[in-house]
């Protein structure tokens, strides 16, 4: 989930450069993200069995913020086991603590240096999409 189109383009670029060919769904705000995950609103009727392998979640999102999204994901038994990686600009201690408290699987601060960002995305893709084994009932 990413509201900033620049960041969205850069993240997609980083994924592409790192040869990660998985399907990427972008939600521009918290409400859209939740709609997608729970097949509501604009995404009504979506096949819920096809849930993402990993969710990259920005904290600052319009309408419903990232922490709230995370909380809802964890509250719902359909999504509670989905891996959620916080990918945000903030390195505030309080944000980090809140994220982990709410059950984030990982917290990565977006570096300004795009080389570092590429590296971070590369490792992220490698780990979550290749190495990590999904929960069997994570749908």
């Amino acid at each position: 989930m990413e509201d900033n189109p620049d960041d969205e383009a850069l993240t997609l670029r980083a994924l592409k450069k790192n040869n990660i060919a998985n399907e990427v769904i972008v939600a521009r705000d918290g409400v859209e993200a939740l709609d997608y995950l729970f097949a509501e609103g604009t995404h009504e009727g979506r096949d819920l069995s096809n849930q993402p392998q990993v969710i990259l979640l920005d904290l600052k999102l319009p309408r419903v913020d990232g922490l709230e999204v995370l909380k809802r994901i964890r509250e719902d038994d359909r999504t509670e086991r989905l891996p959620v990686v916080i990918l945000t600009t903030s390195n505030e201690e309080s944000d980090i603590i809140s994220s982990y408290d709410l059950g984030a699987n990982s917290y990565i601060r977006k570096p300004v240096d795009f080389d570092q960002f590429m590296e971070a995305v590369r490792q992220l893709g490698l780990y979550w999409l290749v190495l990590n084994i999904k929960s069997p009932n994570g749908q």
Partner: protein
Amino acid sequence: MTQVDITNSHAMEAIDAQTFRKKFRLLIFIAWSVPAIFGLSFILYVQILSVPEMAAVMTHPLEPLFMAFWFIFSLWYFMRFARPIVTYLENSCDESIPAARDCVRRFPFHFWLLFLLYLVMAPVSVIWAAELYAGFVSQPVDWFRINMVALIVSIIVGLPIFFLILDLFGRALSGVQMGKPHITVKTKVFLIGALVPLLIDTMLVQYYWSRTGFFTTETFIVWLFLELLAIGGSLIFVRSFGQSLAPLEAVFDGHQPLLGLELNALKSQSTDEIGVLATAYRNLLSTLQMQSEMLELNNWLLRKTGHSMSLESVANSVISIADRTMEGDMCFLLLHDAEQDELVGVAQTGAKFNAGGHFRVAMDEPSLAIMTFKQDQVFAIADVQTYPSCSPELRQRFKIQSALSAPLRLEGKPIGVLMSTSMKIRRDYSARDEAVIQDLAREAALAINTQRLNDQALQAQVTQHEKDELIELLMDSTEEAIYGVDFDGNCTFVNRACVEMLGYDNESELLGQGIHALIHHSWPDGSPHPRAECAVHIATLEQSSAHGDDEVYWRKDGSSFPIEYWSHPIRKEGEIVGTVVTFLDITERINTRKELVQSSERLGLAIDAGDIGVWEWDIATDRLDWSEKMEEIFGMQASEFKGEAQDFYDRVYPADMEMLAKDTSDALEKNTPFSVVYRIVKPDKSIGWVHCQANVKRDASGKSVGMIGVLTDITAQKEADQVVYRLKSTLDMTTDCVFMFDPETLKFNYVNLGAINQVGYSEQEMLDMSPVDIKPEFDEQAFRQMIQPMLDGELKQHQFETIHRRKNGDLIPVEISLSYVQPANEPARFVAIVHDITARKRAEGELREHRDHLEEMVDARTNELQVVNKELEAFAYSVSHDLRTPLRSIDGFSLALLEDYRDKLDKDGRDYLSRIRGGAQKMAELIDDLLELSRVTRSRLKCEAIDLSAMTSEVLNELAAREPKRQVDTRIAEGIIVRGDRRLLKVVMDNLLGNAWKYTGKKEKPEIEFGVMEKNGEIVYYVRDNGAGFDMKYADKLFGAFQRLHTSKEFSGTGVGLATVQRIVHRHGGRTWAEAEQDSGATIYFSLGVNGGGDNGQQENTTGGGQPRRRGFNIAGVEEK
């Protein structure tokens, strides 16, 4: 202009009844006698009948009888027409007029009826008589000829007679309103015009017929034709006359009064004198109308005199009359405004009156009005275009083409202008128009003047009314009683004071009464006081004033009171008409005088009894008179004093002379009271004290002429006072308060100056009070209980603390030391020494309060700080998010460019993009550093024991790991353990060691040292290197945020690091400073104060092999701050 000259007209005298009857009879007689005689003669003359035939006719009865019958009948018949007129002439009463007028109306018909009947019958009677008595045989031609004769006779005689009778009627009824004319001029003209040619024609025919005997049908036709021509001609005459008369006939048509006539109907239609007369008549009427209207206006104004009337109504009336009278399109009334010296157009046709004026024309503007006003004459301007003096503005505004203007004159001076204007060019302004507008202007001026005079009169009335009211008010408000009497002694007016003083209820009880009998009837001793002896009455008779103050007036209730009165005669046109009397009740004055006498007697007694000397000084002679007592006081022998002022001055103690002289001159000039205490030198050289009091004597103009005074010897008193004064002043000098009070009454009998100042009461007030009054904690019982042991001798002195209440209510804490003293030959008393302990109490109170407030203040400050911290956190949070995000875009897309478009970019392009990325990354670094700096301030300190030495090693190892190629000589003091926030101190060491590492980067043998030392009792830690160093003159900038002493090219960095360090150290209560030398290295020192000190035993123990640490160094740190 045509005028009717009355002297030239044929004035007829009035006629009386007798003459009228006589003349009327005569005319009727002539009318029925002359035609007969004339006709018969004519018959003879034209030889219709011969003389013998005629003689036969006349001698026989038929013809004479016929004639006599007509005489008598006509006289009888027509006298009925004369009778009503005679009645009118005899009685001249209005009732007879209608009958008379009716006669005149009916008369012509009856006259001509009978006359024609007579004319028809007369030839018949003649021919019949001739045939009967003279054997005359008549031919048809004879009938014709005789009838012709009758016609001629009737015209020759009947017509003039008829006119004569009408004239007679006219004369008889002259002055009677005839209504419509009965025999019009047109009728008369027709009669004359048609009948006279007929007469001549017929006479000619007769004549030639009788001479020639020639009469044919042709003659008849010619005769008839001529007759018709005559009638036609006279009809044309009549028509012409009709046209001339037509305008005048309009006068007869209406039943309205002459002045109400529509004057346009009177416009002349002919050029003859009747036409001219009609025009003149019409002008006359118009002028009359105007004058009557103006007269009406002026009458109205006069009737309204005394009431308010507005200039508005006058001006509007004038304008409307002028508009009706003048044949123009607009009229203007302008009045002169004397203040502005302008003409103001106040009224005009078609606009309401406006006192301020519809327009204003200055005296120097080109204007017809101004010209009229200035030259004071009438102007008739046929075409204003050709007249440069006319105001072009008004011409434009009102489309005036021609104008007629006249000045409004009052007493020969112009006060305004009346103007009639026309929108056509009029060349027909006549002298009459000028005269009319002049008349109008004159009347208008009169009307305006009347209005103004009335206004002034009203104003004056109002003023007079106000004056009367003022006088009444004055009369009633004065305290003097005033009344007036007429010559007979009856009261004409009284004022309020008079009524009240005399004890009456209202003035009506006095008005009109004989005042002497009411109030002045008896002498003070009660004996009768007749009016004849009354001084007021006598003075009135003598036309003089009177004044007295030894009489009494009597009140309504019979009591009397002494008065002083003044009477003045009232004159009216030189005659005495009464007297006005003013009087005052002088009871009080008399009493005062009595008291004065009494008190002066008492004074004399007092002076004699007391040792008081009396003196009097006369300035003019410089004499000084002394009483005997004076000499005694001065220690002189009787009569030793010479009576001169100098003799006195010689005895005044020299040092007091100046004061005495000053007080004397002050008393004389400034009128200050004279009361002096001074010393005198007695003949035995002893000094005496005297008290001298005096009054200044002044003459009528207020100039001082002398002094009179008394003198008291106060030597003994003065000496006693001196002793007491010394004691008192000593006591007054002590700061403590001394109170003494009586043991019985508890009243104070002495208080010193300190005591007075303390409680705020005056000495006088204090002497009436007791200690209980100023001690709110005691009532009298409690106080007496407290002093009882001292009275009993059980206690000598009592010390206690209580409160005193000042006069203004303030409370003072005091400490009292009370003693009871019993001097040998004086009454016993309590002496209280009182000490004000306010300052002490206040200090105690403040200390207590301060203690109580301290915690509150700390709490408040903490709260404030928390709020500020919260705001700061919110700011930092958004900085960390929002500022970094765009930087990432810059960097990311720059890299994307570099990667995707590398082949399209040249070396410079790639370099620029790299610089962009560098800048963005630098910015991100800056933001992170700033966040770090702010975090330092806002995060809460978590203090614990930290091994700085270990931390230093750790940091240096990290640095070394980053640049494994560099060989740096490091020295770390062992076992430095401090108390502080681990995370923050890590930031400090990161920065300091990072700097050292960075700045030694260009040295061949880099050295970094971390150590600790003691300086002025303070534990100081330092990081020293031998790197680039810096110039000490910039040392003060070193710890400021964003302050750098090296360029980025030399050494990278943000300039925030040392600022962060300083802030962290400050948070720990320590301080930082630096020492350096350019190119030789730098040392950064820091101490850790109150929060960073190892002030517990454990830490002290763990310092182990490090530098010794002093107990309580943290306090030194605080002092350092």
